[in-house]
């Protein structure tokens, strides 16, 4: 699926993640900021990458501002942002 416009999902509140998705010429790219970057940065990136793969997305710049979201929250936020970016 192809990202055609910028879209967002989530909030910057505690235990949530704010996801912004933009069309990207250079394939998938992730830019993550997190209050738990040192402990869970790799894992959060992996969830985002896996979600992109599941949705067959290959041209997304995903900017993520994490405030300690759990795995399924991250997945849900990414899915929502991607869906909004397809229309």
């Amino acid at each position: 699926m192809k990202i055609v416009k910028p879209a967002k999902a989530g909030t910057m509140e505690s235990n949530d993640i704010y996801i912004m998705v933009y069309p990207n010429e250079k394939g998938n790219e992730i830019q993550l900021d997190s209050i738990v970057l040192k402990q869970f940065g790799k894992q959060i990136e992996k969830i985002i990458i896996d979600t992109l793969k599941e949705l067959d997305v290959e041209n997304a710049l995903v900017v993520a501002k994490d405030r300690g979201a759990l795995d399924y929250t991250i997945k849900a936020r990414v899915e929502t942002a991607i869906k909004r970016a397809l229309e």
Partner: protein
Amino acid sequence: MEIVLTNDLEKVKEFLKEFDLSLDDDVDLTLVAVEDDKIIGTCSAAKNIIKGFAVSKDYQSEGVASKLLTKIQNILFDKGIYETFIFTKPENKSIFEGLGYRFVEGNSDVALLEGGAANVQKYVRDMFLKSDLDDGEKAALVMNCNPFTLGHKYLIETAAKENERVVVFIVEENKSLFPFDVRLELVKKGVKDLKNVTVIPGGKYIISSATFPSYFLRKEDDRLRAYTRLDAAIFGRYIAKEFNIKRRYVGTEPYCPVTNAYNNALMDILPNFGIEVKIVERLMKDNVAVSASFVRNLIKQGKLEDTKKFVPESTYEFLISKEAEDIIEKIKRSDSPH
């Protein structure tokens, strides 16, 4: 608690007073967090700059700040503004870092953070890749060239003689009488014969007036000092590092106090990043220091032909062309310092 847009700026100003903050005139939207008809928090935006941010002491650490930030980000995002900046006091830096903002640069007066898709490192890397320059050592100049004069040319020539590779950044902010694309084009034409000189757009992180710290600095002098030092440090940490710039050239500044303060900041800050600052005496002609403001003054007085002595041929050709008519009209009517 709810968060709403407000037009009642007087109330917001009153609230901000408690925090020793004022609300700038340039804000185009203001949010308030309200509980029991009382303002407990606020933030505003002026284009892509988030400012006037405060939350009541009694409500801090209750998620008011993150709700305000989310809402303002959402509004800006929907307006197509994807990169945002926050200027704040250095002691508040970590609050915003905790809210997903990235620290760009700071000093004892101000910290600059960026949010959304803004990413200084990535942006500067893209700038470098686009420039087609190699990674050898370089000298650099940052110029507005409003318009390009023999004074600018002399400065670039001096750098070109003393260095193997020179890169000239043209200030991209479109606040000058000559529009950015005209300024860039005239410099490119004017230095065509200098083979080791590359002229490129300065981008978002060099002298961009959109990123001017304002509300929390009282005195004009402090503000200027903070801004120029911030700009110099961003140049040193990000731009010079990526482009491998070892020297920066500036002209002596006889007229403009802002440029003078800027030169001082460069001399103070850049050596910390291993960059030598070279000051070149201005080119004199007929006992005047050749400068763009001098040329604009001649134009203002209707002495277009007199500019010939002070600008390269390519600039003069442009000034007398049809394309320049509107700009010249604007200069004649304007009192702008730039």
